[in-house]
């Protein structure tokens, strides 16, 4: 059912555009949450359920609440809207368009991207043939096991990064006595 992908992709693109164009930062946060949920749904479509759960918990749950807290802490009157300067806007759009076109051309020319059909959300029962449930339901188990065995060192290093970030954030935001 490819149309599920197209609907989700539309939600991602439209809500991302809303994030960038809304004058009110709180509205931007709300649209960003919708973007993250749609991206999480795309992960589920591809069978990456664990990543989708982490995306919702960490991004939509944690980081966005952090953003909202900070927006509430600072004075919202200071938050200005979309840029008024037409030259800057057109320069940005031209630059991003150039990036879009050049990377798109690179996709076509490089040939490293094979257009491999991916799972696109067809319900297991709707496909021809019986579905092996042990293959369908194992993403969390497989990724979790790998994270704590093969990728144990990077995993622990991430915890150090998070610790440093938390300490650094406290040092930066602390009121000087």
């Amino acid at each position, binding site marked *: 059912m*490819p*149309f599920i*992908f197209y609907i989700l*992709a539309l939600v*991602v*693109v439209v809500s*991302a555009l809303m*994030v*960038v164009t809304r004058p009110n*930062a709180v509205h931007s946060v709300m649209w*960003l949450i919708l*973007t993250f949920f749609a991206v999480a749904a*795309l*992960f589920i479509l*591809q*069978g*990456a359920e*664990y*990543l989708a759960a*982490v995306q919702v918990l*960490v*991004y939509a749950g944690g*980081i966005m609440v*952090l*953003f909202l807290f*900070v927006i509430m802490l*600072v004075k919202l009157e*200071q*938050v*200005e809207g*979309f*840029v008024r300067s037409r030259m800057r806007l057109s*320069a*940005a759009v031209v630059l*991003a368009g150039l*990036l*879009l076109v050049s*990377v*798109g051309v690179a*996709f076509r020319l490089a040939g490293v991207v*094979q257009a*491999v*059909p*991916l799972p696109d959300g067809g319900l297991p029962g709707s496909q021809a043939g019986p579905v092996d449930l042990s293959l369908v339901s194992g*993403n969390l188990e*497989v*990724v979790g096991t*790998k*994270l704590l065995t093969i990728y144990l060192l*990077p995993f622990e290093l*991430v915890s150090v*990064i*998070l610790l440093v*970030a938390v300490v*650094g*954030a*406290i040092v*930066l*935001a602390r*009121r000087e006595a």
Partner: protein
Amino acid sequence: MNGMMLAPVTSMHYLVLSLILFCIGVVGVLTRRNAIIIMMSIELMLNAATINFVAFNGQIIAAGGHDNHVGQIFALFIIAVAAAEAAIGLAIVIALMRTRDSLNVDEIDLMKG
């Protein structure tokens, strides 16, 4: 629905979506002057990178590597680093608000960048 049969979704679809998302993030960083919204645009770009990793991982799995989840694990690390980045960035925002009383990145030019 017969006339609406769509081509199957491939990794290319995901890459193009991620490219569009990244470009929207670039436009946000270049046009908005509010530090918080610039950080949100950066989150958009990080998410585009995550989509790419998962799509390429799907390509590996579709090519037969059923036991290969390195893309998804790398995407997890991206999310963790994004969380650290958000914590530091928002702490900087609070410090800016305290010392300069402004979040406009055009006015924050002490380092002449």
